């Protein structure tokens, strides 16, 4: 089940908002499509991104893919554990496999993002 407290991008990133802070990772569907993840490149805390800009990349045995930030903000923390254990993204994409935490520039910016239900429909349609 896709957790219903998350918002999703068409590029398969998720965002969990608590107050002004947002946690970002990639969806269960994305990790399955990528296959075994072997490396993650993440930004440094303090870096700022505009909504939709690439903030890093994820490398699997199949391909390297860019990661796109769902909303504008400043990176306040990154998941250091992924350096030694990128497999956490495969094992627990919505939990231990989180990637970055940001301070949102604008909490009203989430209009273009999908709810869990909308996202499930979106990947279902893409499959057909």
């Amino acid at each position: 089940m896709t957790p219903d407290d998350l918002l999703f991008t068409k590029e398969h990133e998720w965002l969990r908002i608590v107050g002004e802070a947002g946690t970002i990772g990639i969806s269960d569907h994305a990790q399955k499509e990528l296959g075994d993840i072997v490396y993650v490149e993440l930004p440094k805390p303090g870096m700022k991104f505009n909504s939709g800009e690439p903030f890093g990349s994820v490398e699997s045995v199949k391909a390297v893919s860019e990661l796109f930030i769902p909303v504008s903000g400043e990176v306040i923390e990154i998941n250091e554990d992924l350096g030694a254990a990128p497999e956490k993204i495969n094992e627990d994409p919505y939990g231990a496999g989180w990637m970055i935490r940001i301070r949102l520039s604008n909490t009203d910016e989430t209009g273009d993002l999908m709810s869990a239900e909308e996202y499930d429909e979106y990947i279902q349609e893409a499959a057909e």
Partner: protein
Amino acid sequence: MSEILDANLLREDLPGMSELSEVDVVRHFTRLSTWNYHIDLGLYPLGSCTMKYNPKINERIARLQGFTLAHPYLPAADIQGALEIQKALETCLAEISGMDAVTLQPAAGAHGELTGILMIRAYHESRGHPRKKILIPDSAHGTNPASAAISGYVIETVPSNIRGTVDLGRLAASVNEDVAAIMITNPNTLGIFESDIAKISELLHSRGALVYMDGANLNAMMGITRPGDFGVDVLHINLHKTFTTPHGGGGPGAGPVAVKKMLEPFLPYPVVAKTAEGAYFFEYERPQSIGKIKAYNGHFGMHLRALCYILANGAEGLKEASEIAVLNANYIRAKLKDTYALAYESPSLHEVVFSDRLQARKDVHVWDIGKRLIDYGFHPPTVSFPLIVPGAIMIEPTETESKQELDGFIEAMLAIAREADETPETVKTAPHTTRVGRIDEAAAARRPVLRWKPE
């Protein structure tokens, strides 16, 4: 030695090196060679890589003493033959591609891309501004965006349409005065001819932008159409694909770049030129050149092999090679399309892309199919590329394979599809007949062991 190095850097004992007799060494390497798979052993259907047979006559010519003992530092008068060969190859490649001038220096396709994009940058700079962006279709080889980024450009992706070709409308929306060039592969990585290519070129040219073509798939069009005739300004050519020089471990690559007239001043130096008296020499005085991008003038031994292939085939032979390459790919397509799902219905040229969609229902994926092919005695095709096709299986037989070899491959693919349906575990745990079974690729990438250490 102690005068130039600190004492702590000096070794006191000899390192623990193995000592082996000649026969042990010979047997070791001979044994390793028998565990290998290579083009002299069978079909190597790696799509986009064009693993065609490398004729032995190329090797005989390249081993002639007059060539092996020559050196680029010899006086020009002593290497006239070698220079003439490079010039002759440039002329042949320009004729085949419909371009005006060629550099032979780049050592591989990606190196050719970098050279080409640096020339595009130099061209725009000479007109006042290098511009900002390079447009790249989403089906492109990964090296395209890498080359553009290293050259200082921002990459903008152009989506494909349902036919698997560039979406002209979406492209038109992206073309403006910030665009330096498009990097386009034709036929593209799906093996589909970009039938709008002339319109695409016109569109780019109308805004002062250039057209770079990735010539990885030139093998599909020799003697049939020419990039220079459909508006391409810069093109790299892989001698180790289309022109039968060895790949990878078999020898260095070569990625010559062909350009239209207005880009000629920017070619890397030296270029092979001719004096008024008709003698060849390396010309270094090229004030607008992007500079040197390779030692001397590239991999001469590969230039020699490629010219040998071109002259042995002649114009008619090269055209026939392209026609048979397309025929072979379409033979495989026709025989497999009811068993493996075609990624796109558009006609295929020299390679065909399937997806593992039907087999994935039983949880058998493209990498399982690839591994199982090894048990049947074939090299796997390219898998998981192009990225726009989930579970992509990309098959390029090339023209050098006989019908018997293709039939053997087709039989193996059909047998694997049956196994995927009836006994999926057999496929999912393949290979079963190799010295080493399935390797844990994720562990190898996550925790690589990059250095041998004595135990």
